[in-house]
């Protein structure tokens, strides 16, 4: 436990640096967990406004977990655990000119299978897996964001991969 210079973040510069550090991770976390139906961007804003309103109670060290908890709760208030279907971007062939032919062959059919397979993952699996695969976050970083152990993250990601492959084969 290191003692911070200031014990709250009622300071615009400090607030801005916290925002820059965590807002994107928070946004991605919310998006992969809940989808876009409930406006992850707005929830990020709301969570940071709440943080500011309570800035004298939250130390900089606690800010991250405060933000994630608040944003998660904001979402849970609205999202009644609906099935989350994420959108994928349409293929743009020129994008893959350097890629092996296998990639170019990826058809719409495969993407649709993948879409429903991702929707079938648990929230925990999906969040960890997509943060890892899409945002390129290391297991350790994800563990830090979610306040869980690296081992648990590894388990979630590997579990998600296994489940995806099974689902795609079945479909």
């Amino acid at each position: 436990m290191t003692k911070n210079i200031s014990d709250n973040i009622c300071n615009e510069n400090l607030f801005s640096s916290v925002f820059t550090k965590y807002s994107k991770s928070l946004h991605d976390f919310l998006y992969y967990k809940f989808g876009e139906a409930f406006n992850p961007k707005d929830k990020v804003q709301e969570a940071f406004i709440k943080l500011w309103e309570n800035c004298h109670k939250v130390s900089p060290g606690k800010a991250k977990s405060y933000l994630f908890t608040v944003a998660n709760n904001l979402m849970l208030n609205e999202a009644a655990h609906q099935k989350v279907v994420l959108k994928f971007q349409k293929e743009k062939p020129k994008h893959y000119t350097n890629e092996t032919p296998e990639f170019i062959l990826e058809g719409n059919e495969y993407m649709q299978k993948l879409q429903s397979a991702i929707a079938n993952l648990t929230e925990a699996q999906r969040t960890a897996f997509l943060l890892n695969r899409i945002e390129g976050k290391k297991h350790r970083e994800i563990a830090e964001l979610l306040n869980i152990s690296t081992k648990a993250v590894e388990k979630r990601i590997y579990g998600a991969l296994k489940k995806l492959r099974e689902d795609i084969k079945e479909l």
Partner: protein
Amino acid sequence: MIREELIKKWLDNELNPQEFEAFKQLEDYEELVRLSHGVKQFKAPEYNTSGELNIALQRIKTIKSRPNNWLNPVLRIAAILALSFSVYYYTTTLDTNITTLVAQKTTLELPDDSFVSLNAESTLIYNKKDWKNKRDISLNGEAYFKVAKGATFNVNTPIGTVTVLGTQFNVKQRQNYFEVVCYEGSVRVTQKSNIVTLKPGESFLILNGKRIAKEKETALNPSWINNESSFKSMPFAHVINEFERQYNVNLDPQNIDLNQLFTGNFSHEDKELALKSITLPLNINYRLLNDTTIVLSRD
């Protein structure tokens, strides 16, 4: 087992070159890469951190955080205290108002040890606050005062003011009638330009605007305190008014000279007897018309 380890390491981007070669040799390598690539297309929408930060900064400016948040509850408590204090102050400085109705008498203790007895249909107004420094009472009607020692004691009536110099006295102010009788100590009466100091037994009477001399009072206190009204050479109209006040009835005088003088008493306890007391000496007949009206007439 090796295979699972390799995949896990691949997932964490931790493969070294040799391990990567081994990973490539896995039979599901292509499938994994394809999956991994496909998943990338589910990327979250672009998030513009600096743009979002500007929005957030503007929003917090409108909230304008209260860095001294402790001030808020303190202000609230202060407001409540101020409010209750002002209500307290207002109610305690409010005039005290005591009124007797017709056929009603009351005695009350003033903030010091002074006593006031209030006769029927009279109003007394005083203010508790500052009573120690300024004993001011407004009176409309008739009251008997027993004043404790202290600051100047004033009784203000519409016709005149009575200033007490430690004493017992009676003030009677009715329509066109103002009488002060001093029973003990001395009293100063101010009425227009008249300033009179009364000694025990002396009285001051203004009837229809004229000062009328009265003989010395011998009683120790006014008769109404003993539930009697007494009159000495008073116009009969005053007697009728006083009777109406004490018994809550209407006297209807017919062919009677209301200015003739009356001397005598009537009791406040027996209406029949009281009626006789005021009618027999003047040869007047009375007739009870109903519960509230009595006709007076002369044959």
